[in-house]
């Protein structure tokens, strides 16, 4: 967009010099950005003596793939992984439900208090999590949900971004579809299930990816709600593992690689959805 058409095919040497400088800057920064990921992987394959060799070992002479197995068995990481998957899927499904129903109401109905309720959602969900942390913990505790899967999911089951996204998406869909279904005798719940949800597939995909990563990566809440190691998530397990393992950096990095892999793969597969989600939430606040 900043590009201006130059007359004919002639371009000055300054133009090419500028481009080359830009590319060099971008490549350097890209390498710096990627470096911690590369270093994590390389370190995960080092032997315990290579980790502390000086001058530093850039590539392990003999990649220790066994580090992954050893690290994984140091703690019940399989259990942590199961917990994480379960909580992530539960949180994502609940968020899809609460966001699609509320977004549907805001997009396709007129009702008293609509504006105020919408503003309230925005305000509430912008609260820093630490502000509600103590009381929410006390409430979850009094409900007997500490150390339970539902307790672990709770703060994540609504999403301001989700309500926003669904509302926005549905506003662009003509009402005729809904009216036609109503004439055919569908009730509102039927319209939601049979018309709205299928239409929402692309928006729900964005929201699912977004919620999945957020839930997979979350730390503070599982840290206080998971009382015993049987309920730890991967992130909590890794934080404690890194505290206890001391200097066995190769093992820490092996676990780090595994815990990161699912979100990274998901990101690389659905890259354009992530960018779309930021652009969209960015435009609207």
């Amino acid at each position, binding site marked *: 967009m*900043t590009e*201006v058409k130059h007359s004919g095919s002639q371009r000055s040497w300054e133009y090419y010099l500028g481009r080359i400088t*830009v590319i060099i800057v971008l490549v350097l920064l890209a390498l710096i950005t990627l470096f911690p990921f590369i270093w994590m992987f390389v370190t995960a394959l080092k032997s315990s003596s290579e980790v502390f060799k000086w001058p530093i070992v850039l590539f392990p002479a003999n990649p220790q793939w066994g580090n992954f197995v050893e690290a994984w068995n140091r703690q019940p990481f399989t259990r942590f992984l199961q917990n994480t998957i379960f909580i992530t899927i539960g949180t994502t499904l609940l968020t899809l439900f609460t966001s699609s129903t509320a977004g549907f109401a805001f997009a396709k109905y007129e009702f008293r208090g*609509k504006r105020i309720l919408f503003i*309230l959602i925005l305000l509430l969900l912008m609260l820093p999590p630490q502000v509600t942390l103590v009381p929410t*913990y006390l409430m979850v505790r009094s409900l007997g949900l500490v150390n339970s899967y539902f307790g672990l999911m709770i703060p994540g089951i*609504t999403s301001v971004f989700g309500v926003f996204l669904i509302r926005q998406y549905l506003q662009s869909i003509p009402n005729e579809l809904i009216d036609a279904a109503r004439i055919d005798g569908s009730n509102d719940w039927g319209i939601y299930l049979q018309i709205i949800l299928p239409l929402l597939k692309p928006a729900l995909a964005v929201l699912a990816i977004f919620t999945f990563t957020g839930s997979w990566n979350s730390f503070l809440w599982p*840290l206080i709600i998971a009382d015993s190691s049987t309920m730890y998530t991967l992130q909590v397990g890794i934080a404690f593992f890194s505290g206890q393992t001391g200097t066995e950096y190769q093992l820490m990095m092996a676990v780090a690689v595994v815990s990161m892999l699912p979100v990274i793969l998901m990101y690389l597969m659905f890259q354009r959805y992530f960018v779309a989600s930021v652009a969209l939430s960015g435009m609207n606040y």
Partner: protein
Amino acid sequence: MSYRINRRIIPYLFLLPCFVALILFSFIPFLQGLYFALTSYPLLKSPEFIGFKNFERLTRDPLFLASLRNTLVYMITTVTLRVIIGLILAVLLNIRLRGRILFRTIFYLPVIAPLVTVSVVWRIIFDTYSGVLNAGLDLLGIAPVPWLTSTAWAMPAIVIMSVWKTFGWNIVVFLAGLQSIPGSLQEAALIDGASRWQAFRHVTLPLLRPTVLLAVVMSTISASQVFDQVYVMTGGGPGYSTMTLGQMVYTAGFQDYEMGYASAVSVVLLLITLIFTMIQFKGFGQEVEY
């Protein structure tokens, strides 16, 4: 008649799941938090109203004063850096370049990675004796820096790591902002004889004001809550040098079990976020039309 009443309730029924969760787990806890801040509330006992005593105690608590100062330093430095770096890179990526999608994908990668996990990775990178960062500095003839073990360097280390983690988000937001500005405006400025820099400074930048506001506000809100990287990389130390308000809410509430005192800290955290947001809206918030 029954049909009409029924129709009126329907939207509220659709709002119910979302609002029940919000009221139970956001709205009520928020009000409770404001009240608990005025109480003495050891876990396992009931809250006892003590007025503003918690806040008086905060003004005398060296841990709190350090946390407050560190949080402000962290917020101002990280937000400035991530917004400026994000803006510059977005402008560069907005040029039609081969591979710009690849660059964008790479710059956004840290944003998506789990914060705790990358904090563990950076802990190793920052290691004084075996860390790769000091190995690199050694090549340049710079003596090893005690990144995470000295009071002077621990906060800069956390800032560096956090900027790395978040600048990609700003790039994507600024790119979206840049692409929403009609290209014809810049072209007009260039045709009128403005240099590229002048066109950017006087045409693009003013139009980008709402995006800058968004980036600054969202970055500030997220920076005010800094927790994971502090917890993993330094635990608030050495001394109190990287203790932040977010970290203090955690230690006061879930290690010392002083729920009232922890709530008071969280109220201060909320106030800081509000004050910053209000200043930013005043500073950037004029309407822009084009």
